[in-house]
């Protein structure tokens, strides 16, 4: 009998509130399954299990807040099934039942996959529905509702597209049927700010950052994306940002001292490249969930996963592996941002790549000055794990890969 514990979903997390069980007692679970939802400072996180077996008993009820590491449920390993089948209340040592015919169906007792890699995330839906995390409401309505403790989810909106307007909140407050205040699940931007503050303060306190910057011509990659997208429906189109993530992942694979974790025992390079993509949250806030296997997954699959990840980040519905697996982060300023960013590394990672807004700028090509779409790439890296020389080679490799979009 094993214990399934409250996972740590980031360097800064101390406790979580269990808000939903998704698996009933007695149900078979497999490594990588989402079994419950935990509310944290970064929104509601779907937590995954890392063993295969049967969820025997829940130890925490919905609504309880427990610290990281607290047992959430008992997990019966494959082969232990017989003890439970006898209905024994007493705890039998595992040895006494080992080897007996298991009562579970064959697939439930399949051996767990090799443990060296985290499980791949569930295949994303190709066209995820837009974020549906919180009701639509005008900023004024949202402010008043927050101040008065009104749950927007309980209101009917009279604004455009059914959005909740200020008047709707006012009438809910004055009317006799004002819904009882309820703590909504989803994103609490104040709490998220605290989590960002804790992680970034730790980063600035502990990590000896060094910074490099390099200008990259994104014309070839942009043209490649435009040509590919020309005949495709929107759901299958790529973004330039996808090629940047891929180029960073490929380069990180070649320079392992920029891809991994600095922990108590020193730097540990990661096996795979899981790129944390910084996603700005509407209203202020930031989360950088992992896009798994960014170096190797086919691009169409990676793009679908990227869209799905951004939608869920904004809706406040990420998975635990996405919160913890990122081995390097990419922060892109988008198409209307500024030229460059000096990043703050998300611990325990050791590198962050910043992508400035691509802009038409004068460049010298074959001795002539011509306008080219240029973007400034920056690297913030941990000097405990790498030096500027290797960091420079890494940035140059990203720039080189961006000139060969076909090879990505």
């Amino acid at each position, binding site marked *: 009998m094993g214990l399934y514990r409250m996972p740590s979903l980031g360097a800064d997390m101390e406790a979580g509130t269990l808000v939903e069980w998704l698996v009933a007692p007695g149900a078979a679970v497999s490594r990588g399954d989402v079994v419950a939802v935990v509310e944290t400072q970064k929104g509601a996180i779907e937590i995954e299990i890392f063993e295969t077996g049967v969820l025997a008993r829940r130890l925490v009820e919905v609504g309880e807040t427990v610290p990281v590491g607290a047992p959430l449920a008992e997990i019966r390993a494959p082969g232990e099934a017989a003890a439970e089948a006898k209905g024994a209340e007493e705890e039998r040592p595992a040895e006494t039942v080992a080897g007996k015919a298991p009562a579970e169906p064959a697939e439930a007792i399949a051996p767990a996959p090799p443990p060296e890699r985290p499980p791949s995330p569930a295949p994303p839906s190709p066209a995820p529905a837009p*974020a549906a995390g919180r009701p639509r409401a005008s900023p004024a309505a949202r402010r008043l509702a927050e101040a008065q403790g009104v749950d927007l989810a309980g209101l009917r909106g009279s604004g455009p597209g059914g959005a909740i307007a200020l008047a709707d909140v006012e009438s809910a407050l004055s009317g006799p049927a004002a819904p009882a205040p309820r703590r909504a699940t989803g994103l609490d931007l104040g709490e998220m700010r605290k989590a960002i503050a804790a992680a970034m303060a730790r980063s600035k306190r502990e990590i000896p950052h060094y910074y490099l910057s390099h200008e990259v011509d994104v014309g070839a990659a942009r043209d490649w994306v435009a040509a590919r997208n*020309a005949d495709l429906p929107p759901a299958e189109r790529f973004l330039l940002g996808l090629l940047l993530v891929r180029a960073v992942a490929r380069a990180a694979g070649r320079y392992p001292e920029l891809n991994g974790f600095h922990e108590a025992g020193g730097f540990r390079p990661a096996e795979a490249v899981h790129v944390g993509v910084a996603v*700005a949250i509407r209203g202020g806030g930031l989360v950088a969930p992992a896009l798994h296997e960014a170096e190797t997954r086919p691009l169409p699959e990676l793009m679908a996963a990227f869209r799905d990840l951004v939608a869920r980040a904004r809706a406040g519905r990420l998975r635990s592996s996405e919160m913890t697996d990122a081995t390097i982060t990419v922060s892109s300023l988008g198409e209307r941002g500024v030229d460059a960013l000096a990043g703050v590394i998300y611990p325990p990672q050791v590198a962050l790549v910043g992508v400035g807004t691509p802009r038409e700028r004068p460049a010298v090509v074959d001795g002539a000055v011509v306008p080219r779409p240029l973007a400034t790439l920056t690297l913030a890296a941990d000097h405990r794990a790498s030096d500027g020389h290797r960091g420079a080679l890494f940035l140059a490799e990203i720039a080189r890969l961006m000139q060969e979009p076909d090879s990505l």
Partner: protein
Amino acid sequence: MTTPDPRAVFEEELMRIAPDADLADVGPNEDLREAVDIDSMDLLNLVAALHERLRIDIPETDTPRLTTLAGAEAYLRERLASA
């Protein structure tokens, strides 16, 4: 079959992506990317949703026409009429 109102459909899908936006405050020719803070991923999702709901082709090269309320309404009317 009733003809969908392109302006209403557009605003509805835009609100899905930018739920906190106050479209009453947005001028017809204001750039939505600035006015309601949508990025390239949002715009792609918006185009995908419009394609799905209105059953019209929206080539990527036309996407810039969807970045203002007035431009989007005119463009969608045009596409619906020629569909």
